[in-house]
C-alpha cells in the first residue's frame, strides 16, 4: 500500500486526475492474488495463507510481477479461506498454507488451474474454476458486496480505483440537497436494519426539522445471532459507508456523523478508523470537502455489546454516554434524536446503497426488487445449509432459490423444515411457504420480518419449540429491563417454554403464552419487547402440533429436547462392535465382545454420542420420544452367536 502523504483533493476534477493516475500505475494484466482477510476467513486460517503467499512470492523472486491483496469478505465463508486470482478470476477455496507454493508456480507462473482447489458441483460433479461460474455466486446480484473481493479495505487507492467517491463528487459538484433527497426517495430505499422504513422520508423529516445542528449516524450494532452482513461491509468496504453517510449528511444539512459499532467487531473498528483517517487526508471528510464548501466529520463510537442498543433511541442514549435504554417518547428521532437534535440513523447496508443510487440513478436501483421492496438485500445464510455465507440477492427472489440454488440445500440429505428470518425479532417460515418472495411486507405478512438479514436454515432435526425458547432466552438476556411487559413478560414466557421443552408443560400453557405475547406486543416500550414474541407466535402458527406434542404427549417430534428423549439400542440390530461402548463419556453402556450392548438409562446423559458413532450399516441406536423405553434385554439373551463368522 502506498503510504506517502497525499495532498488534499480540492475538486471533482482533481479527484478524476488522481483516479486516472492510480489506474495508470496499475496494469490490469498483472496477476493479483486476492485473499479474503475478513473475520470469517481469518478464523479459518487466512492469516497464515497470506503470510505464506508473501514468503513464496519473495522466494520465487516475483515481487515485481505479482500483486497480493488482502480483501474484505466475498461471502463464501463455508469454503474459506477464499483466494481469487486476477485477471482470470480463478477462485480457489479452502486454501491452506501448503497449497501456496503450488498456486504460485502453477497458476501464477504457468497459468494452470489447480483442480483440487476449485469448486466442484456436488450434484453434477462439474468444476467451476471462475468465481462467476460457482452457483453460489452465479445466482446472486452482488451490487454492494461484490466490491469486497476487489479492494483492500485499508487502501483508499483501491477504493478510488473502482470509482470510489465519484458519487460524492457528483453530489457536491452539481446536485442540490433536494435533488439528492428526491433521488433517494425515488429509489424507494427502505431501511436495511429492521423496520424497512423509507430512508428518503426519514431524511426529509430531519431536513425539514428546525435546528442548526443535525446528525447522521451509522447503526453498526449488528447483534442478531448468526448475522454478519454489516460486519462484512464495514470490514471490507468502509469507504463506501463513509461516502453514503457524507451524501446523507449533505442531503439533510448535517455536519457531524457517528458510526456506532460493536466493540466485538475489532477489525471493522480498525478498518473504519483507517478509512476515516485516509478520507480526511484526501479531503473527502473535514472542511470544504472537494472544494464545495461543505464540511463534515465522522466519529466512531464503540458499543459495549448490548443488543438493545441497535434500537434507535437506545443507540442514541448510549451515544450520549448513558446506559443504552430506549426512550419512552412518542416522537421520531429524525426530529428529536441525539442530544435532542434531528438525527438520521440508518443501518450500514442502507448507507452502502446510497453511493450506488446516486451514481447509477434511482431507475437503475428500482429495476431490482418487488413493487414495494426495491434493490438488493444481503442475507447471512447460516444454520443447516451447505453454503454458509453472505448472499446478496434482488428483493423478490424466493426463499427456495436462496436456500437451494445459492445455498446448495440442506447437508446430509436431511429435509428442510423452516427458515428463521429477521433475527430474534423475526419468525420461522415453514416449508409450504418456500416460494414466498423475499420482501419487507411479504415476510411481515408471513409472521416474520426482513430484519437486518439473518437467515437461519433449519432441518428436520430442529425442534421448533426449542428454537422459540432459544430466541426468547437471547432476548430475555438482552432486554434492558426498563418496562414491565418486556422484562417480566419474557421472564414468564421463558419459564413456560423451558418447562415445555423439559416435559413439564401444562394444559393452558399455549394460551398463557399467547396472552403474555399480547401484552408484550401492545404495551412494551420499544421494538425489542414489541417484537419479542415473534419467534414464539410464528412457530405456534406453523408448528402448533409440536407444542401440543410436547405438552400433552411429553414428546419431542424432532427428537431434540434432551429431557424428552431417550436412547435405546435395538438388540436385533446391535452387532456388539464395542464402538458406542468405548465412546460413551458417561460409561452408561453395558456389554462386551459378542454381547449385545445395553444403555443404562439412569446413567445416560443423552449426549447422543452412541447415536452418532453407531455405524450406519448397523443403525442399532435409536432415539425415542413420547413412548416408554423398551426394557433391557435379559442378561441371558445378550450373547451373539455368529454362525458364519470364521474365527
Amino acid at each position, binding site marked *: 500500500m502506498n503510504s506517502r502523504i497525499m495532498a488534499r483533493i480540492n475538486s471533482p476534477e482533481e479527484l478524476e486526475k488522481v483516479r486516472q493516475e492510480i489506474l495508470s500505475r496499475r496494469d490490469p494484466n498483472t496477476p493479483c492474488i486476492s485473499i479474503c482477510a475478513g473475520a470469517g476467513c481469518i478464523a479459518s486460517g487466512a492469516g497464515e495463507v497470506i503470510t505464506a503467499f508473501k514468503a513464496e512470492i519473495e522466494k520465487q523472486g516475483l515481487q515485481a510481477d505479482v500483486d497480493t491483496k488482502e480483501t474484505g469478505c466475498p461471502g463464501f465463508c463455508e469454503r474459506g479461506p477464499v483466494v481469487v486470482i486476477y485477471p482470470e478470476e480463478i477462485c480457489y477455496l479452502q486454501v491452506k498454507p501448503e497449497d501456496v507454493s503450488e498456486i504460485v508456480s502453477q497458476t501464477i507462473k504457468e497459468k494452470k488451474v489447480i483442480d483440487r482447489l476449485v469448486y466442484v458441483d456436488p450434484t453434477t460433479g462439474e468444476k467451476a474454476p471462475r468465481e462467476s461460474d460457482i452457483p453460489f455466486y452465479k445466482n446472486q446480484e452482488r451490487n454492494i458486496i461484490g466490491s469486497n473481493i476487489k479492494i483492500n479495505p485499508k487502501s483508499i487507492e483501491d477504493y478510488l480505483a473502482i470509482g470510489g467517491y465519484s458519487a460524492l463528487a457528483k453530489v457536491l459538484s452539481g446536485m442540490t440537497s433536494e435533488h439528492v433527497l428526491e433521488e433517494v426517495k425515488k429509489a424507494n430505499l427502505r431501511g436495511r436494519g429492521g423496520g424497512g422504513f423509507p430512508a428518503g422520508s426519514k431524511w426529509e423529516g430531519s431536513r425539514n426539522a428546525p435546528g442548526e445542528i443535525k446528525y447522521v449516524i451509522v447503526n453498526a450494532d449488528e447483534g442478531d445471532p448468526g448475522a454478519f452482513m454489516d460486519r462484512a461491509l464495514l470490514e471490507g468496504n468502509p469507504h463506501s459507508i463513509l461516502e453514503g453517510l457524507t451524501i446523507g449528511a449533505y442531503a439533510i444539512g448535517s455536519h457531524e456523523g457517528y458510526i456506532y459499532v460493536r466493540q466485538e467487531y475489532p477489525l471493522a473498528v480498525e478498518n473504519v478508523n483507517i478509512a476515516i483517517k485516509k478520507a480526511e487526508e484526501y479531503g473527502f471528510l473535514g472542511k470544504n470537502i472537494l472544494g464545495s464548501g461543505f464540511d463534515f466529520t465522522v466519529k466512531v463510537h464503540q458499543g459495549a455489546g448490548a443488543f438493545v442498543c441497535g434500537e434507535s433511541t437506545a443507540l442514541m442514549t448510549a451515544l450520549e454516554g448513558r446506559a443504552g435504554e430506549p426512550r419512552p417518547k412518542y416522537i421520531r428521532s429524525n426530529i428529536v434524536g441525539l442530544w435532542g437534535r434531528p438525527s438520521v440513523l440508518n443501518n450500514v447496508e442502507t448507507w452502502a446503497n446510497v453511493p450506488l443510487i446516486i451514481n447509477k440513478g434511482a431507475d437503475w436501483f428500482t429495476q431490482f426488487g418487488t413493487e414495494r421492496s426495491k434493490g438488493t438485500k444481503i442475507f447471512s445464510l447460516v444454520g443447516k445449509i451447505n453454503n454458509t455465507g453472505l448472499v446478496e440477492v434482488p428483493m423478490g427472489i424466493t426463499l427456495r432459490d436462496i436456500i437451494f440454488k445459492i445455498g446448495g440445500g440442506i447437508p446430509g440429505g436431511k429435509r428442510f423444515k423452516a427458515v428463521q428470518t429477521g433475527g430474534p425479532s423475526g419468525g420461522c417460515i415453514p416449508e409450504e411457504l418456500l416460494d414466498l418472495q423475499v420482501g419487507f411486507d411479504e415476510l411481515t405478512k408471513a409472521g416474520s420480518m426482513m430484519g437486518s438479514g439473518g437467515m437461519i436454515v433449519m432441518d428436520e432435526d430442529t425442534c421448533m419449540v426449542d428454537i422459540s425458547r432459544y430466541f426468547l432466552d437471547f432476548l430475555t438476556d438482552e432486554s434492558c429491563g426498563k418496562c*414491565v*411487559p418486556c*422484562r417480566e413478560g419474557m421472564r414468564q414466557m421463558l419459564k413456560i417454554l423451558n418447562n415445555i421443552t423439559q416435559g413439564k408443560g401444562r394444559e393452558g400453557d399455549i394460551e398463557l403464552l399467547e*396472552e403474555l405475547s399480547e401484552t408484550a406486543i401492545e*404495551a*412494551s416500550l420499544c421494538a425489542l419487547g414489541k417484537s419479542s414474541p415473534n419467534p414464539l407466535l410464528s412457530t405456534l402458527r406453523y408448528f402448533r402440533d409440536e407444542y401440543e406434542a410436547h405438552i400433552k404427549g411429553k414428546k419431542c417430534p424432532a427428537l431434540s429436547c434432551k429431557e424428552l428423549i431417550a436412547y435405546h439400542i435395538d438388540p436385533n440390530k446391535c452387532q456388539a462392535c464395542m464402538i458406542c461402548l468405548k465412546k460413551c463419556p458417561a460409561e452408561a453402556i453395558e456389554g462386551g465382545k459378542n454381547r449385545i450392548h445395553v444403555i443404562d438409562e439412569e446413567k445416560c446423559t443423552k449426549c447422543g454420542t452412541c447415536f452418532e458413532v453407531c455405524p450406519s450399516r448397523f443403525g442399532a441406536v435409536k432415539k425415542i420420544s413420547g413412548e416408554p423405553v423398551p426394557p433391557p434385554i435379559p442378561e441371558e439373551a445378550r450373547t451373539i452367536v455368529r454362525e458364519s463368522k470364521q474365527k
Partner: protein
Amino acid sequence: MSEILLQIDGKEIRAKEGTTLLEAARSAGISIPTLCYHEKLEPFGGCRICLVELEMRGWTRLVVSCVYLVEQNLVVRTRSEKIDRIRKMILELLLAHAPDAFDLQDLAKEYGANRDRFEKEASFCIHCGLCVRYCAEVKKKNAVGFVDRGIRKEISFIPEIASRECWTCKECFPLCPTEALQAAYVLVEALAFPKSSSESASGNKEGDRPRI
C-alpha cells in the same frame, strides 16, 4: 401557549399544549392508574400500566398516557376490554414480585388480577425507578441506581455516595411502592457504612422511617 381541545372517555377537555394525557385526564377528574409516575419527575414510561387507547380515523392505538402529549381533537379511552386485560396482566406479573404491596393489591382488586397467577420471585422490586430518578433528578445525588439489565436488573445504593448523603435524606423511602428499596438500603448500610459515625448513634435505627 395555545389551548388544546380533546376528548377523554367522552368528556370534552381543554389542556395546555405540552401537557401529557395523564395530566389532562387527572385534571378533569378521570383517574388512570400509575406505578412509576411522579409529578416531580420526568416521565419514565416503565410500568406501562397507564396505557390508554387512542382512536384515529377508525383505528385504535395503545400509548402510555404519562408520556403521550395532548393533541387537538384526540379521542382517548382510558378503559376498554383490551386495556383492562393488559393492565391485569401487568399487575399479575408484578404481584409475582410484591404480592403484599398495597398499591398493587388495590389495583388488583379493581382489575381482577390474580396475585398467584405466576410463581413468586425472590426480589420485591418492581423497577418503577422512583428512588433512582428521585435521587438523580430532585436530589441530584445519584446515590441509588440500577445495575445490570433485563431480568437481572436491580436497584443498588452506591456505598461511596450513600454513606455521605443518605443519612440525612432518605426521601426516597416513602416513594417505594414495595419497600424493596428499604431492604436494599439497610443491606448497604450494614455492609458499607462507617459504624462509628456519630449520626448513626442518633436514632437512625432499622425500621425507623423518617417522614418527609
